[in-house]
């Protein structure tokens, strides 16, 4: 599961979920390459989920602000 494989998989996944924006897809790709192969606690994953949801809804409303990782 190298970086190349992850990038291809992200492209495939976007076909299944067309409304997922570039930034959200890039964020998940980055997570796959750097963090998701390590053991993460539920709390850590919940924090990631929160960020992704915020990104997604901000994308939809046009809001753009920095947030914590």
């Amino acid at each position, binding site marked *: 599961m190298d970086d190349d494989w992850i990038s291809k998989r992200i492209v495939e996944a976007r076909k*299944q979920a067309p409304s997922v924006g570039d930034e*959200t897809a890039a964020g998940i790709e980055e997570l796959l390459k750097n963090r998701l192969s390590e053991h993460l606690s539920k709390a850590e994953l919940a924090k990631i989920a929160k960020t992704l949801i915020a990104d997604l809804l901000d994308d*939809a409303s046009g809001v753009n602000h920095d947030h914590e990782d």
Partner: protein
Amino acid sequence: MVVYGQNGSGKSSFVDAFEYALRNGKIGHLAHEYSGKHQEKAIINTHRPKSAKAEVRIQFENGAELRAEIGANGALVLSGAGGVAIKTWDYARTVLRQDEVAHFIQDTKGNKYSVMLPLLGLGRMEVTAQNLRQLSRSIEEQSKLQEIERIVSDGEVRRKDRFGGATDEEICETIETLHKRYVASSTNDPSTQCLELESALDAKIAQYSGDQRRHLALRAAAEVGLKTCVDHVRSTNSKLAAAVEPLIAEKLGVLQSARAYSAKLGKEGSVNCPACGRPVATKAFLAHVDSERKKLQESVTIFQDWKTALGRLCDAVKSLRSSLARPEVKEWRDDPSNAQLLKNLAWLNGFDADGIRVSCTEEELKAIEDKLLPLVDAAGLVSKTAPAEVTQLSVDKQLGDAAKTLLKARERAPALARLRDLVAFVKSVEEGVREEIRAGSQTMVGEISEDIEKMWSIFHPGEGIESVHLYIPEDTDKAIDIALKFYGVEQDSPRLTLSEGYRNSLGLCIFLAMAKSGASEDQPLFLDDVVVSLDRNHRGMIVELLEKEFSDRQVIIFTHDREWYTELRQQLDEKKWIFRALLPYSSPEVGIRWSKKTSTFGDARAQLDERPDSAGNDARKIMDVELALIAERLHVAVPYMRGDKNDRRMAHDFLGKLIADGKKCFQKRSGKDYVSNPDAIEALDRADRLMISTANRASHSFDVVGPESAKLIDNCERALESFKCSSCGRNVWFADAEGSEWVQCQCGELRWRYGKA
């Protein structure tokens, strides 16, 4: 290395020590409620002097030494092991204990998968897949996806109920008309119109008389649509029972991937099925994937419809309860002619409405019909006598509420679509990772299965159990199981047909196949009393297996089986194997002790003081086994005996033949020539005479005394040592000598000419 020791002599302590180092201070079988937080009560010698350290030391061939110091409280300090990758040696592929032999076979499919995961090298991918699964769950929870789904679904349902097939424009016109009727101000925004309409209606109701409000509440109760909701649940219950597919979500996931795969295919020719690898016509493959997806999609629709029906019924019951609980309905509730209805009302108040949001059985539906429909009908009867103004307001309020719910649903619908897409996106990536895991697992499982099959055929040549292999079940992720053919019949599990002994030998094959797979030559194998339930024939195959498959690995075998230990000493190549015996355990102060000899006479000597008869008896048993094997190695011909008497020859039978043959066949070097070996013959003869006198009495009349047994043991030992060269330390059958009939020790000091007595 082969280590012999009676039960309790301390064999497993060596394995424990290794596990302790391997698992960073943990020993699995000692982890229990009495062993202390750090197992300090179980690991440290109970009689350790205060000044002495408790420690484990492992020395490696490269000179490194791993040292594990164990504090009084069990705290571990690890040091050393430079250059040895001991941390990468997983326990499941390094150590096999007696009680673990059949564990793998008896374990669940999921645990088998967990055990094999590091072996498959897919651990990080599994972690990724698990993280992705938890991430999609977390997105669903944090975004309150289910709640939004309910709001959106509720909006559509209310629209259908109150506005039928009306278009959006028609609904907006209706709201505008109502707004004009009750609200003085003017606005074009439908949401604001709904909010203002709600406030205006509430204000109007507040000015109503008690009688008007009672009519309003009872009308609301009558119009909850309970009968329609019950019918909807009943209809979806039967559709669900007939159509639902097991593991529907997983199957849809696979089909989704198959669809993506099929999208890349041309329309002509054939394709290898991604599941089984068999060629399938592309058209047929595409048609099959499409038809399966449609079939499952119908099931998903039915499932979603069922959930909606349950939600509506739950809401209707709650709405009925709320309407009938209003203070303005008190007079109606307290009417003595409504006694039966009061009982129904009590049932309604005690009913778990939220429970039917999850599921609702036919019995529950009947109870709802029996208890609640009379309440609805009674409320409807009273509400028919309501003044026209109240009836109109009730209708308008319900339209306003429905419009408000619909607009709320519309507002949330885009967010719902995006959130669903995000979850689908993460799930799709997870499915991709799982596909990779499946593909990787299939390859590794195939390779390991080949080894299992090979080892099994060494253990059980020509027997009716074949095609023993691991497989990945199709219907579930994260699972591995074992299948075989039992006399030609496919079996999904060895637990269906194999005896305990066969399961154990299969367990051993699986362990060895896993241990062989992907391990470095440095990685040792510990086999702790693993042949307990194997019979002699199958036990004997282990030597062949180890020599064929593990000749480049360090193998440490522990056994309490004296006979097998003796066999191993005779059968394994002395140039490669070390044999050690442990003395019987005497006390914690003395601890574990190595015997100075490789034979097992230490067991016999340990009994000299307390049980001299047992000591003598043990010596005879040792000689029975040792001499049988020596006679076999030296091709000593013994008379044929009928049946299993062939296997029950005693030491005396063999000694007699060895002495007779030895006079001509057993030679020692004298200068450039070979001469007969009278010292050896004398040693064998002396042992034979004592065998007849002392050993027989030890076995039958038990009246031997310590010195007699000691003499017997010494002479038996001397007799066996007479086959070993005092110069090179090797037995007389160590190597082939010149010509095909001679064998000799390593240096050629001793030789035996077999077959020419």
